[in-house]
């Protein structure tokens, strides 16, 4: 059997507005830019892709299945800026062929800094998915597929998830294939679903690359590659950013017609099928333990944290955000808490990356800043203001402390 499992990541951050040290306004986010980017991507990607996949599901009468991880942040933006996207996701959820995956509401790196905050954000996300789609996520993916044994243990302890999705990085698999279900060490309940990065990247990155020897990629060619897994694998995990369709790969590359034809081509082989992540773990047992003592991610070629923690600005900013956790929480002010959590979204730190800055590449995607230095300055100015607001909330109009703060 080769069970193809599609999972799409859907996320856009709340980008900060230009904020200098002289600004004192408590409004940190660039409403105009966020709205226009959200609408633009909705028109180029989210809406046409949702309609196309909905159409394929109906056409194949339920034999085509997919899964999504929608961050809380993008769902807030859809509600605010383009509610029509919400209704297409509703329609997809109603087919019964779509699974929603759990993650941190704010697409944050909180797992690395604050276990309490991490669990709080996972719970907040689960509540939102339950409320919107009536599903309780059984499978978890951490921001940017950041993963280690420690994450598995933390998730196992919540007792709410059955599997974790992460990168099928070569250095954790050795000569094993990503086309099987694995499990983490020291966990009884959890299974691992690993991304088949080769086949995933053929669609996500190489699809329109004219220098690629397999160009042009057609649905029947891709189906043949999937067929080869029959007999030496159980599942083919195709995990990618949803923006692949229409945004990373523009419509004129033929990406939509490829996706429209791919399911029926894959189903031509009688042993192939489509499954959601939950169906995969229910159908297949773990074949082996995958030990990941060090943190991995799906980013860049390094598959590590260097895109978010690669320079002193990034580690400094992250450290400073989590340093004020107790201060923010002591205020018991929902507005301050929400602002603080929005600042945790990993994109803010990604913009500060100096790794490939000189070359210019994927790191530029909807990056609102001219340089990583500008993004750091802006972020730190906002954070300073937030900190000041938190401290001030303990002081009444006469300048007297209201409560004891730490």
């Amino acid at each position, binding site marked *: 059997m080769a069970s193809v499992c599609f999972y799409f990541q859907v996320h856009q951050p709340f980008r900060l507005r230009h904020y*200098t*040290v*002289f600004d004192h306004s408590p409004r940190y986010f660039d409403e105009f830019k966020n709205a226009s980017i959200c609408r633009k991507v909705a028109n180029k990607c989210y809406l046409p892709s949702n309609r196309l996949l909905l159409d394929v599901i109906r056409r194949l009468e339920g034999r085509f299945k997919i899964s999504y991880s929608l961050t809380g942040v993008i769902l807030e933006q859809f509600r605010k800026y383009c509610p029509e996207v919400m209704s297409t996701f509703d329609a997809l959820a109603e087919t019964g062929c779509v699974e929603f995956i759990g993650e941190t509401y704010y697409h944050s790196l909180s797992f690395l800094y604050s276990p309490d905050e991490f669990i709080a954000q996972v719970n907040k996300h689960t509540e939102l998915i339950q409320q919107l789609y009536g599903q309780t996520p059984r499978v978890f993916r951490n921001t940017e597929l950041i993963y280690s044994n420690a994450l598995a243990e933390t998730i196992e302890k919540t007792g709410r998830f059955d599997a974790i999705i992460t990168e099928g990085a070569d250095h954790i698999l050795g000569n094993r294939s990503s086309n099987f279900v694995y499990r983490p060490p020291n966990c009884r309940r959890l299974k691992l679903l690993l991304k088949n990065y080769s086949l995933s990247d053929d669609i996500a990155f190489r699809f329109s690359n004219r220098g690629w020897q397999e160009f042009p990629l057609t649905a029947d060619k891709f189906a043949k590659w999937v067929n080869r897994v029959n007999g030496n694998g159980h599942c083919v995990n195709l995990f990618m950013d949803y923006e692949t369709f229409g945004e990373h790969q523009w419509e004129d590359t033929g990406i939509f017609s490829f996706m429209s034809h791919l399911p029926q081509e894959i189903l031509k082989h009688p042993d192939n099928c489509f499954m959601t992540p939950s169906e995969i773990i229910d159908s297949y047992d773990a074949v082996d333990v995958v030990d990941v003592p060090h943190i991995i991610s799906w980013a860049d070629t390094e598959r590590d944290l260097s895109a978010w923690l690669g*320079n*002193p*600005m990034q*580690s*400094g*900013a992250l450290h400073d955000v989590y340093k004020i956790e107790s201060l923010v929480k002591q205020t018991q002010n929902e507005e301050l808490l929400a602002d603080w959590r929005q600042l945790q979204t990993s994109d803010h730190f990604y913009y500060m990356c*100096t790794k490939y*800055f*000189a070359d210019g590449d994927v790191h530029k995607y909807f990056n609102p800043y*001219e*340089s*990583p*230095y*500008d993004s*750091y*300055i802006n972020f*730190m*100015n906002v954070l300073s203001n937030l900190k000041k607001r938190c401290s001030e909330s303990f002081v009444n109009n006469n300048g007297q402390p209201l409560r004891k703060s730490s």
Partner: protein
Amino acid sequence: MKVFMLGWEFPPYISGGLGTACHGLTKAMNDLGMEITFVVPKPIESNLSAHVKMLSPLQCRSLGSVPEEQSTTEFPDLKNVTIKTIGSPLEAYTTPQYYEQKIEELLKQRRNVSDPSQDIELAVEKWLRETDEQIEHLAHEHYGGDMYSEIHRYAASAVRLAIREDFDVIHAHDWMTYPAGIAVASVTGKPLVIHVHSTEFDRSGEHINQMIYDIERRGMHAATKIIAVSYLTRNIIITRYGVLGEKVEVVYNGVEQNGDGRTLPFNKIGIQSNEKIVLFLGRITMQKGPEYFLMAARKVLEEMENVKFVMAGTGDMMHRIIEMAAQMGIGHKVLFTGFLRGKDVEKIYQMADLYVMPSVSEPFGIAPLEALNYDIPVLISKQSGVAEVLTHVLKVDFWDVNEMANKIIAVLKYPPLQLTLREHGNFEVRRLRWSGAAEKCRNVYQSILQKN
């Protein structure tokens, strides 16, 4: 490859970046094994240029005498470079008054005679004598004197030198040497390359000196190829001087690796050890945007106390800027050092926490590269050529003093920013060496010589 190079400055006789650039470029060309004859006007001792004393052997004649044979100087590190100096009481960046078409007369003369080699020398001698009379007359008036006759006489002397030299290509640096370049090219028939380090629009904004513009324009149109120090400058050459784009190549400047013997910051006179230092280093002129530096300084001081702003350099706006600082009420926070050179430059760089170049118009700007070489974070205006090559620096529009102050404060307030800028900036600047520039110049020469 033999190059006949015409310059206006050469260290230690420098008043700005041109001399530094000429030195760096010729040194790198020397290392590539190219032979260079470098012709510069010889500066005459004057109380305004105190540094001249350091090289007294060059000061072999007194002001106002009839110029004798050009002296030849040799630098130990420049094996293949011959420096020829021509007596001159001038320094670059002086505003000239007028200019005539002496070279055209000379050429007319050349066309009129059948055997040029004989008569051209006579004509040049006659031309020189004429200019000498003018110089003698003007030298009594005031320092700086008459730029026109200077350029003019420099051209005549250069031609006299050139007809006795053997070379493949003429390379002229900035407008003062263009007439000489044209004259030498016309007389010898060798291709002329002009190197544009700055244009009249960079120096004077929109209120250009028509005479200088005309000299520049003529030089650009007479040249076989033009080397611009940045795309910013290339665009000005194309749009303002009506030159075809295919004729203009961009060769970025480099920076020399600073010597060893780095010392720890010391001698913070008038500056407390816990105070941060923001440095402006350059001529205090309109082009360099000193008033924007002050306006940003005032904004910074509204937010932070322990900062000093050091302005190193002199220029025609110096007094206005000192007064402006006083009027703003930040006089005690802004220090003026005057013109610095050598060890003093090194020292001031070592003391600084941030180097700011708020230039209104900067064709390139070598100083930020030097600052990066000294491990100093750098903030430059987007209106500078060097902004095209540097990524690990802060950039700001020169007029946006709010943003300038915001970024200055960020560097002083957030240590990780300073750290990252230092680390990456120093690494990046190591790739920008004069050897690259010299190779590109050689490619330009070769492309011309192959065509001929």
